[in-house]
């Protein structure tokens, strides 16, 4: 059913991506802005402070916000050009209905009519197939208020188990590991603790491109005398000046961390007091790494033994350290185990919960932290409570004014939602802030599932690639068109401020969700008049939970440049550093600094297992994927901003000269990468900065340029994160495409406006 009524080219011709450039008012250097709005960048989890300049309800430019403490004015190119997403020709100003008679596949319809149509389709599907036949896919770039509302909407209004979010592709492995080891999931420290640490260990984090401002923290630590160890299959910019580089074979991180722990034990590089006083289960873990000798570690990880020994010695003998990781170790079928491996070496060193001693995953999405705390995850309720826990259910049901038994049971992860479509268990889908056709693995399967839906409604500010398959598209709000809070990679809750009103028929997302509830005649709990009112309810709902926001107000966030949760009361200062000795939390209740009843952290035994798909004679190379600095995630915004597209117009394949020589490839040649699931033909870059057995393709592009045609949908058993970072491919040189073929590969309009 949900199938474009016309060609992708025709839809793209109308809805883009078109490229915005600075023109008109935005080039007028004499312009005096009507207002200057202190807010944050809309892109990554660092949430840099930025001042937006507004004239005649248009964001016309920016000014650095020097006083915001995290970035002190610094911005990456995405932040610099973010203002060009506003007043964009592709901005959806109306609701749209799919119309096979329209040349561009859609026709505009009135907002109220669109909402009524959505409500009647939801009602029809739920009447015919039950409440769970309607699913929601939400996103972690939304404000925490909206994330909270989406979780409540699915459970209270739709009464459906089936809601999940795109954090499933991002933070869940680290989140699950943090909960297993610490009982709480947040960066253990603010980045201030990086600055004077002695050793920075970075595993699987392309910091320079994916968290650029963090580079300054790491390099400032180095200026202050720290050594930097980088573990990555590629020499990324942060690795270029590191002190020790470990070129790990993708998917082998458990083996490396176990090998490091083996050497820590062998050389007695352990904090016995900390282990005894603040942890449990060390002996089991120690027994588990007995066989992880340096030579075996070298054999599995593809790293020379002497480099492994040096890393262990530096880690073992450091007096202070900060371990950072990101999707590089998390996007695996053993993503949770990889993170637990990292945590094991942190706990064995005893270097956590003190000044300049820290551990953190670098959250990817704008609200990757806040978006994973308050209930849009399939098994979660606000305040990081569990939907499967009767006590937690009763607590939240009371706040929501519903019966506990009316709350649905936990649902399934975002990818499983598509498999449920395949199994005819889900018939209708509502998506917001999620572009699964670009971002999910094996996306040819995702496309077939979208085509199979009886009804699909997408809420977005642009017609993203997935929305092209929708029956109804509702015009939501851009970041600068609404207010609310987000929680940064550091765990700092900050305030997003509204700069301009929603244009045309577009609405703030929370209004759209509430309008659907009202039209369904199920308005109970969806009558908020402002994001502030939603936060007030969230504060109450989070009270007593591990992610306690009860002391956080908009006024405090503005005045204090953000507040770190947990924050138990309006008098509480917030918590930049977790796990300090003697600190109280609601789970340990005074028994210790970690979030378990005994107050102790958990060592978790982990065993190396190979990735889901290993190389063989037929598919002999490892494909790994990642980001480039000028684009963000599925590119819905950045592929519409001219200067960012100019900076990186197309994806490419990175190949080491050894492999390139074997295949007769040179920079500028074209090659086809092929996995068991699909093919992708792209230009080649030959570089010595990648492992010879591995190729790299960035993932921000749709259609025939999408590397997610190749990636595998195998998932981590616990976190359900897909294994984006390893699959098996073959590679062959192909003739450069003709102009006509290139036009087919690039159907999106490239008109400059």
């Amino acid at each position, binding site marked *: 059913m949900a199938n474009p009524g016309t060609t992708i080219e025709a839809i793209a011709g109308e809805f883009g991506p078109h490229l915005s450039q600075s023109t008109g008012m935005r080039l007028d250097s004499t312009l005096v802005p009507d207002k200057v709005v202190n807010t944050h960048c809309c892109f990554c989890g660092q949430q840099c402070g930025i001042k937006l300049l507004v004239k005649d309800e248009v964001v016309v430019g920016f000014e*650095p916000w020097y006083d915001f403490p995290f970035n002190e004015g610094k911005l990456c190119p995405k932040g610099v050009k973010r203002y060009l997403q506003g007043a964009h020709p592709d901005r959806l100003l109306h609701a749209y209905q799919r119309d096979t008679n329209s040349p561009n596949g859609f026709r505009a319809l009135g907002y109220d009519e669109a909402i009524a149509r959505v409500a009647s389709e939801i009602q029809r599907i739920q009447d015919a197939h039950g409440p769970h036949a309607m699913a929601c896919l939400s996103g972690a770039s939304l404000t925490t208020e909206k994330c909270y509302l989406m979780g409540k909407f699915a459970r209270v209004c739709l009464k459906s188990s089936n809601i999940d979010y795109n954090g499933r592709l991002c933070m869940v492995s680290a989140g699950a590991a943090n909960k297993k080891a610490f009982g709480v999931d947040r960066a253990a420290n603010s980045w201030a603790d990086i600055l004077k640490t002695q050793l920075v260990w970075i595993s699987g984090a392309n910091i320079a491109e994916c968290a650029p401002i963090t580079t300054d923290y790491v390099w400032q630590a180095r200026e202050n005398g720290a050594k930097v160890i980088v573990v990555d299959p590629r020499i990324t910019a942060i690795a270029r000046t590191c002190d020790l580089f470990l070129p790990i074979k993708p998917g082998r991180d458990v083996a490396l961390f176990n090998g490091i722990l083996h050497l820590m034990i062998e050389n007695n590089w352990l904090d016995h007091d900390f282990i005894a006083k603040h942890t449990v289960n060390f002996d089991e873990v120690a027994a588990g790494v007995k066989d992880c000798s340096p030579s075996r570690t070298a054999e599995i990880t593809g790293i020379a033994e002497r480099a492994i020994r040096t890393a262990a010695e530096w880690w073992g003998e450091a007096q202070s350290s900060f371990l950072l990781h990101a999707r590089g170790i998390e996007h695996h079928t053993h993503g949770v185990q990889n993170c637990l491996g990292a945590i094991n070496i942190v706990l064995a060193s005893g270097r956590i919960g003190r000044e300049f001693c820290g551990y953190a995953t670098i959250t990817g999405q704008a609200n990757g932290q806040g978006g994973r705390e308050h209930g849009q995850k399939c098994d979660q309720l606000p305040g990081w409570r569990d939907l499967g826990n009767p006590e937690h259910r009763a607590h939240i049901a009371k706040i929501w004014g519903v019966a506990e038994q009316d709350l649905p049971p936990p649902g399934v992860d975002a990818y499983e939602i598509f498999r449920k479509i395949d199994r005819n268990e889900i018939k209708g889908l509502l998506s917001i802030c999620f572009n699964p056709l670009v971002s999910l693995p094996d996306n040819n399967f995702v496309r077939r599932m979208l085509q199979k839906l009886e009804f699909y409604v997408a809420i977005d500010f642009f017609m993203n690639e997935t929305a092209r398959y929708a029956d109804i598209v509702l015009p939501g709000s851009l970041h600068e068109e609404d207010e609310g809070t987000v929680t940064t990679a550091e765990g700092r809750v900050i305030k997003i401020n509204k700069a301009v009103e929603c244009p045309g028929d577009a609405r703030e997302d929370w209004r759209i969700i509430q309008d659907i509830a009202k039209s369904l005649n199920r308005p109970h709990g969806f009558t908020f008049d402002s994001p502030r009112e939603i936060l007030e309810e969230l504060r109450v709902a989070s009270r007593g939970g591990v992610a306690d926001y009860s002391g956080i107000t908009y006024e405090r966030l503005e005045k204090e440049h953000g507040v770190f949760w947990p924050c138990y009361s309006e008098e509480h200062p917030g918590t930049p550093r977790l796990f300090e000795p003697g600190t109280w939390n609601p789970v340990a209740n005074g028994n210790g600094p970690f979030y378990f009843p005994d107050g102790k952290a958990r060592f978790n035994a982990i065993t190396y297992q190979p990735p889901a798909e290993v190389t063989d004679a037929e598919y002999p190379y490892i494909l790994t994927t990642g980001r480039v600095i000028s684009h963000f995630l599925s590119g819905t915004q950045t592929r519409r901003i001219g200067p960012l597209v100019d900076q990186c117009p197309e994806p490419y394949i990175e190949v080491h000269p050894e492999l390139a020589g074997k295949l007769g490839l040179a920079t500028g040649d074209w090659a086809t990468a092929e996995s068991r699931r699909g093919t992708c033909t792209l230009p080649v870059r030959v*570089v010595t900065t990648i492992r*010879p057995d591995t190729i790299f393709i960035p993932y921000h592009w749709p259609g025939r340029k999408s590397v997610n045609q190749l990636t595998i949908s195998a998932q981590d058993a616990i976190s359900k994160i897909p294994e984006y970072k390893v699959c098996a491919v073959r590679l062959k040189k192909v003739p450069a495409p003709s102009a006509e073929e290139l036009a087919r590969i690039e159907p999106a309009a490239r008109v400059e406006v």
Partner: protein
Amino acid sequence: MPVSELLEFFVDPARCIGCNACVQACSECDTHKGHSMIQLDMIDQAHSTQTVPVICMHCDSPTCAEVCPADAIKKTADGVVQSARKPRCIACNNCVLACPFGVPKMNTETHLMMKCDMCYDRSSVGKKPMCASVCPSQALFFGTREEIARLRPRSRAVNAFQFGNQTITTKVNMMVPNYAAADCIDVTGSMHGTVIGNQIDASVLYQGIETGESHHAST
């Protein structure tokens, strides 16, 4: 108001991450909105992620001004070399060709040489230039000598450059590692040397690695 004598520009190429934030932010500067006056150079993309931002070094004796037949390029009293003056510039390109750092750009639409002016509209009123404001890694740093000495103890500021027989001193400083003895950076000399690459060195790979190896079940 002149640029404060206390505030200086320091370029620290070892910190450059190639992000282009400087290039993108330059085009947001009010004196040349829509046009970026600086560039990012790749050093040897096949072997290294090393990049270098190229801003105007604001020479004490600017070659661009010296070769200008129309006397269109002026240096303000505070040492900032400005874009060519519109009424005088004859778009001859002498400055573009002569600048040893490769900074001036000819705007072919307006027949006017434009160049990095240290965001004079900002720096002359005490604000940081756009590029140094946004630079995520602070490879471009604008501040006092005390600040840079405190923040970068591993390197020191040098402002003398050798191009063949020409020695140039500049208002803008280049940070060089403390272990480098030279007080003058021999730019042309180093161009004949080996490019210091940054490649995955076979010695840090486990020796069993081969491209396209068949997978061993045990690993």
